[in-house]
């Protein structure tokens, strides 16, 4: 009986799978023939055509002669930039607020709870507009902007002195410093010395390009556009409210005896948190934290509302409007978000598995 039941179940499953596969195949076939019937040229050759437009912020050189394919990369890099900075700030703010919600100080607890309730319950787009238009209106125009130590702040953005030249040594210094944190004993010392050396070389080779107010704006230097700052602030502050709750829940789920035992051993409250409670809480925190990182990345597509040139704005916006290749462009854009999300998830799943082992 058991055997026949299993066989029957197998065949039902197989038939269902075949039906689903047939349906999918038929859908793809129909879509394909319908697309073929439309008097529109399909394909990806448009990616090598010159784009003809310019972009407000680019991490790689881009001008009107560059191709749509390069515009795609520019948008992708801008999305990644916002996501990376946003994730970093959201994590810092989120963990601080989450820990503060459990602090012995009642005022601190209340402030943290207020933060979470306020930002978790406001639509992200409103927060974004608030930061963008609210802050933009307060800032003075370039001619009367603030100046401090060679840096300029006005409604065109924050203009910082731009250190140039020693880039690779700086990267090496950072890498060695990171290595020093991970490695042990002799290797740690070696990496530390290397990091210091690389840092000195970087400083020696660097020359600073100072921003300079001229004509209608400020030129030269490293420019942080208001759109980037508003987007990062809104994404980080919004997502941090969720991360704070995740951290609080994770921390509270660690058995109370653990904290009491740490106190009995003479650890201070912060030490107990750092060495006993948080490491255990992290195992619970990482999976939901992953979803928040993914949400932040996907939410960054709201950028188009405030003119930050992200992937959706440049590629699924301007490029789509100019070429009309809607199906290809939307498929590519969805592919990017899917890949980003799956990659982040895979990375954190790996970290999660490692932590549990």
């Amino acid at each position, binding site marked *: 009986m058991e055997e026949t039941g299993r066989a029957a179940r197998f065949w039902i499953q197989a038939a269902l799978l075949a039906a689903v596969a047939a*349906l999918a195949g038929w*859908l793809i076939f*129909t*879509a394909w*023939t*319908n697309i073929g*019937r*439309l*008097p*529109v*040229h399909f394909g990806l050759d448009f990616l090598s055509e010159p784009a*003809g*437009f*310019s*972009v*407000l912020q680019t991490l790689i050189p881009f001008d*009107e002669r560059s191709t749509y394919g390069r515009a795609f990369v520019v948008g992708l890099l801008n999305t990644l930039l916002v996501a990376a900075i946003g994730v970093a700030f959201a994590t810092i703010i989120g963990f601080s607020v989450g820990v503060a919600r459990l602090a012995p100080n009642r005022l601190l607890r209340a402030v943290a709870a207020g933060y979470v309730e306020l930002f978790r319950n406001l639509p992200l787009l409103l927060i974004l507009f608030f930061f*963008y*238009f609210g802050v*933009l*209106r307060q800032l003075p*125009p370039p001619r009367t902007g603030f100046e401090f130590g060679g840096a300029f702040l006005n*409604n*065109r953005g924050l203009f910082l002195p731009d250190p140039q030249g020693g880039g690779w040594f700086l990267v090496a210094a950072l890498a060695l410093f990171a290595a020093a944190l991970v490695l042990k004993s002799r290797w740690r010392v070696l990496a530390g010395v290397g990091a210091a050396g690389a840092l000195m070389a970087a400083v020696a080779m660097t020359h600073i390009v100072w921003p300079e107010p*001229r*004509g*209608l*704006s400020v*030129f030269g230097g490293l420019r942080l556009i*208001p*759109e980037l700052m508003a987007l990062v602030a809104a994404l980080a502050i919004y997502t941090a409210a969720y991360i704070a709750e995740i951290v609080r829940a994770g921390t509270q789920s660690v058995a109370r005896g653990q904290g009491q035992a740490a106190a009995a051993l003479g650890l201070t409250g912060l030490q107990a948190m750092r060495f006993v409670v948080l490491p255990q809480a992290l195992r619970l925190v990482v999976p939901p934290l992953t979803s928040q990182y993914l949400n932040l990345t996907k939410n960054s597509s709201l950028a*188009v*509302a*405030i*003119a930050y*040139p992200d992937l959706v*704005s440049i590629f*699924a*916006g*301007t490029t*789509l*409007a*100019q*070429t*009309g290749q*809607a199906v290809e462009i939307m498929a590519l854009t969805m592919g990017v978000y899917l890949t980003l999300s799956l990659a982040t998830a895979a990375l954190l799943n790996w970290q999660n598995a490692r932590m549990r082992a």
Partner: protein
Amino acid sequence: MKRQGILYCALALLFFCAGARAGTLDEVKARGKLNCGVTQGLAGFSSTDASGNWAGLDVDFCRAVAAAIFDDPSKVNFVPLSSKQRFTALQSGEIDVLSRVSTWTMQNDTALGVNFVGVIYHDGQGLMVRKKLEVQSALELSGAEVCTNTGTTTELNIADFFRSRSMPYKIVAFEKSDEALKAYEAERCDVYSTDASSLSAQRVKLAQSEDHVILPDLISKEPLAPAVRQNDPQWESLVRWTLFALINAEELAVTKANADKLSRADAAPGVRRLLGAEGDYGRAIGLDNDWALKAIRAVGNYGEIFDRNLGQQSPLKIDRGLNRLWNNGGILFAPPVR
């Protein structure tokens, strides 16, 4: 749960089966309504009033097409579309006519599977700046940052203009024109740019509109034209000749008020042909011979439509400029009905 799944499958099938179609005119007649793609709100061209009624030049054009078919200008379904969605909506059959301030360019006309029927408004892209900048001409805008909205020819025109004069610039492109205007108002940009026709309407929205000036330079040609799908020549002719009929009506002094009377009276041969009293012009586009009479009776001639929505009778008070008739100092010229 399972039933829901089946429902979704059925929906997906419907979506993919919708490809095969009869002639557009037969579809419209069977549906009893014309599906017309318009903007999400642009004063003078297509916008809704407080009670949700659509009004504007583009809206009245669709009403004219509906009246030519059904003898009833109210048989239109207006579909508000973003500039990103507009051509896809037309290609996929969601709308029958795209009457949405779309620029007739070679790319739009040839590569997107749509055809433009004729220019309904000759526009150009303009620039607005603060008076305190003391700029007299667009040529003094070197280094400017320009707020505009994305998804139109606007970005490209700005790029072409500054690039061809080797002037540095930055473009700040928003999804919606209202946000672009707000950012300009907050002095995020030195310049706000869009088609000249909507520039004056946008300027009125600014808190201190007298502090801003629209520069005399037009940096592009923007022939705005209604569009239809490429695969139905009869439908294309119907929409094209509705536009020509409205323009010819102005030239022949046929108005909303006198159209009926003229069609019965012993009028000039050109008027009689236009109004279907002579000849057999309606049949070739699948309509009755008095199709133009029905359209003009419903919305008036081109001049009346312009005055009502954009010109002296409207709050915008836009000068007709290039959009005057060819024999009146403009470039508006429609082929004759004969």
